[in-house]
């Protein structure tokens, strides 16, 4: 792993777990150094679909998915940094999974404290095999000034980041076993006028995945680094290894070190200090012994922190850090992907309203708005047009239309009449397209056969949405379904329709009228088109069912029918409708 390579890449970060304070600080850093967009591209967590953060004074959303497998392909490909903020017991498994799943991963930073030593050692092996720089556990992160800030390192408030003077790179590497002290050292370095080439908190465990020696060698190989500031502690023998590297000529850059823990000499039985490693198990592991050993190899070992800055040399950083200023942040109560004002004009789906109106058919506008993004596929638009027309009305006898008609005759207004009809739409009336679509997605992605799919419904005692018709039968097919078949031949092999047909083949063996009905066919073909023409993933299709996109098509189209029935009744003006006594059988 070479830092020079990392400096050239554009960071694309995935966070395992969510730590809003850390995320915001990373975005603030991106903004401060003038990046055009946030380095964090996704969050792996449960419960939400997106999280909102500030981008300068503005707001951005970061997508949240429940597991790595749900990430979009381009995100998987582009991701080169992972920051893991999950709990200690999940550190090993989640880090391992990320290293295996993300082909271009270069860096992992692990935040959790109390990770078992054995897990860290296992990760060390994996990291070496895959040439991934894994920092931590219990690391507050890595900072590569001008490139990225991974983790809380450097601070979690915008002002802190500005005050730390870390927007631009310098000549001094900061390597620390302590998270609090890494920040302190950064301030010492920049306070002395020098810049940071990179800073790294290794974590205070006995076996951090990246140990101080590896970090030193990283600094040695880094062309930007001229000198190294190191913070170590009592406990462990890392400083002996560092001294050995120097003696062997493998570490030649000037090291200015502070090794904490001489105070342990005050205790009869020294306590376990703050960090896991910080307990000297033998005289060799004492701070005094380690300081002496480092000095012998020519390391500048400081007894006081304030001596560090005066032992640094080389080019100083320009005073003017020239970073963006943030003065006003306001969290908006709502976000919208559909429309909003831009410079005083209403914009719809990214274009000025009139421009959108001029360039779209009604079906194109409807599909784009319902999907929340501009749709360019002609086939998808034409299919939507057909569906909207096909669903517009199915006679005055159906529940929804009756409610509208009764309400109209009661003298209520249009909105009430329409609402009365719409309020009828649900699991038994009109909702079948949505449920059928969900069924086809689940069926296809679960890998079960059509037979197993049917059996699962039989076992639950439920009916399969999209299957069955009152009138039409296998030998007398629904002409509307035939019309929909014009839109097959999609690039995904029509896999949803194919599955629906396989289900139909089984159900019609049981009963001739258990055919694929118009709801089931609309759902299946729409799924095939969305997947083939608009690159929807199965998870996204399932989400469309969750938010009732397919229901929306029905409601929208049928609103025309209900409205028509309302107006029709008002034109007749027959007066209040009432059933007669013999329409209802009273049972005493």
């Amino acid at each position: 792993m070479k830092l020079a390579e990392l400096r050239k890449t554009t960071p694309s970060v995935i966070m395992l777990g969510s730590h809003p304070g850390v995320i915001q600080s990373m975005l603030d850093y991106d903004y401060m150094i003038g990046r055009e967009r946030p380095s964090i591209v996704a969050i792996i967590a449960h419960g939400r679909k997106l999280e909102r953060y500030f981008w300068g004074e503005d707001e951005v959303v970061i997508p949240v998915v429940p597991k790595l497998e749900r990430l979009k392909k381009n995100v998987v490909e582009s991701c080169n940094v992972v920051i893991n903020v999950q709990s200690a017991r999940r550190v090993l498994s989640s880090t391992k999974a990320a290293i295996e799943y993300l082909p271009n991963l270069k860096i992992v930073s692990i935040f959790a404290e109390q990770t078992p030593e054995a897990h860290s050692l296992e990760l060390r092996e994996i990291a070496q095999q895959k040439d991934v720089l894994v920092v931590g556990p219990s690391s507050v992160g890595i900072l590569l000034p001008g490139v990225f800030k991974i983790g809380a390192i450097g601070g979690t408030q915008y002002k802190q980041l500005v005050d730390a003077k870390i927007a631009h790179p310098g000549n001094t590497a900061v390597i620390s076993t302590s998270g609090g002290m890494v920040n302190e050292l950064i301030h010492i370095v920049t306070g002395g006028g020098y810049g940071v080439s990179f800073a790294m908190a290794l974590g205070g465990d006995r076996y951090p995945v990246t140990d101080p020696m590896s970090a030193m060698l990283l600094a040695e190989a880094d062309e930007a680094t001229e000198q190294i500031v190191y913070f170590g502690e009592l406990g462990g023998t890392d400083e002996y290894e560092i001294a050995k590297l120097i003696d062997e000529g493998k570490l030649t850059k000037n090291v200015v070190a502070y090794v904490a823990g001489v105070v342990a000499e005050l205790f009869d039985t020294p306590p376990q200090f703050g960090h896991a490693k910080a307990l000297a198990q033998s005289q060799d592991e004492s701070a005094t012994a380690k300081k002496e050993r480092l000095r012998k190899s020519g390391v500048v070992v400081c007894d006081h922190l304030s001596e560090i800055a005066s032992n640094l040399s080389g080019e100083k950083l320009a005073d003017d850090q020239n970073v963006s200023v943030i003065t006003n942040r306001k969290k908006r109560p709502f976000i919208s992907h559909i429309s909003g004002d831009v410079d005083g004009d209403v914009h719809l789906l990214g274009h000025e309203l009139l421009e959108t109106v001029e360039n779209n058919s009604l079906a194109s506008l409807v599909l784009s708005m319902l999907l929340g993004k501009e749709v360019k596929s002609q086939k998808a638009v034409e299919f939507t047009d057909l569906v909207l027309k096909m669903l517009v009305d199915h006679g005055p006898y159906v529940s929804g239309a009756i409610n509208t008609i009764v309400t109209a005759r009661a003298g209520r207004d249009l909105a009430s009449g329409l609402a009365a009809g719409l309020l009828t739409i649900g699991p038994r009336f009109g909702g079948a397209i949505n449920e059928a679509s969900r069924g086809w997605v689940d069926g296809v992605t679960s890998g079960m056969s059509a037979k197993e799919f049917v059996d699962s419904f039989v076992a639950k005692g439920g009916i399969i949405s999209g299957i069955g018709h009152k009138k039409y039968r296998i030998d007398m097919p629904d002409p509307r379904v035939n019309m929909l078949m014009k839109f097959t031949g999609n690039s995904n092999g029509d896999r949803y329709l194919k599955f629906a047909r396989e289900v139909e083949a089984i159900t019609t063996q049981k009963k001739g009228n258990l055919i694929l009905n118009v709801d089931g066919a609309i759902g299946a073909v729409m799924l095939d088109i969305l997947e083939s023409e608009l690159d929807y993933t199965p998870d996204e299709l399932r989400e469309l069912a969750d938010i009732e996109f397919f229901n929306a098509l029905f409601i929208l189209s049928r609103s025309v029918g209900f409205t028509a029935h309302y107006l029709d009744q008002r034109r007749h003006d027959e007066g209040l409708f009432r059933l007669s006594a013999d329409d209802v059988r009273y049972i005493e």
Partner: protein
Amino acid sequence: MPRRKLSEYRAKQIVTTALDVPYEGWDNPDKLADGTYVVKVDQAVKKRFKNGLVGLKLSASEVKKWADQTREKGYEHFIVEPYREHDQSEERYLSLTRDGNGMHLTISSHGGVDIEDNADTLETITLDDATDWNTLAKKTRLSAEQLRALVDTYTKNYFTLLEINPYIVRDGVPHILDAAVEVDDAAALLVDAWGEEDLRRPPRVLSDEERTVAELAEKSPASFSFQLINPDGSLFVLLSGGGASVTVCDEIYSAGYGKELANYGEYSGNPTEEEAYIYTSAVLRTLLRSQAKKKALFIGGAVANFTDIAKTFAGICHAIDEYGEQLQKHGVHVVVRRGGPNQEKGLNNIRAVLDKYNLTAAVYDQTVTIDAAVKRLIEEVAQ
């Protein structure tokens, strides 16, 4: 904190299970059948023989009496085993450790208390795929299966040290006379063979405040520690952060005021306001009790990454306000040095409450170094 000692009783149970040999031993010294026993304090104390913490060749009633007497010295955990005569020449040594280079087995045909005198007989082998288990079996008098089982049990139970010293082998059956096991306490929730209740630390008489902090630490997801070094010291510290807390104490020590340092301690992991209040109160009560003529307190630490300074300082301010008049009476002066999120608000608030009782020596942000702040603290107690 990661490496902790397991009770000898639990260690022997796990080890004998791995070796597939019976284990005869009890952790209750009060209810034994007739017999001759050896009883030991099982509380991670060193040099038990020398300190009279082993009772040899005792009857069941003598064990109970011995245990009762030892309890009066402050010990509460014991291990009792049948007493068996053996010759010191039979004693052997075996240990397992793991570090970044792998698992290491150290063995010797000598063992027991004299192992350090026979250090030249110790042989350390790093285990890997090429390990010749049969040769090791001959050297240790254990079977290859038993050796491999020890390695497995080490890994499975998250040991960080396994030392069997000594064991003897009679008729091919190993007897574990003493075993020390250290485990990674971060793995407490991942293993079945041991739990938090099996972890031992040497008994130490805690002050009320030390106990308060220990209890606080147990309950909170944040971490707290507080240890008295010199109850009548003049310099008290209320610090945040594992690295910074050691650094501040080091700076006091290196300035030649180590003997004046009254306590070590730190809080970290973004504690709540209430927790910061409880912790501060414990430190202040200890400070008020010190007989030192001049007393000073250092509050703070390094530049925090994510700990909210305003929030934690609010708890600290609350406690200072409560003890303010007493602190003033004792002539205590306070140096604050801290940076981090919301530092301005935090520092302003603490300055206000310190000023209210004339306790302020100095309030610094990160532009003043830690050692400069410590120097200012020492000025308060220096003649």
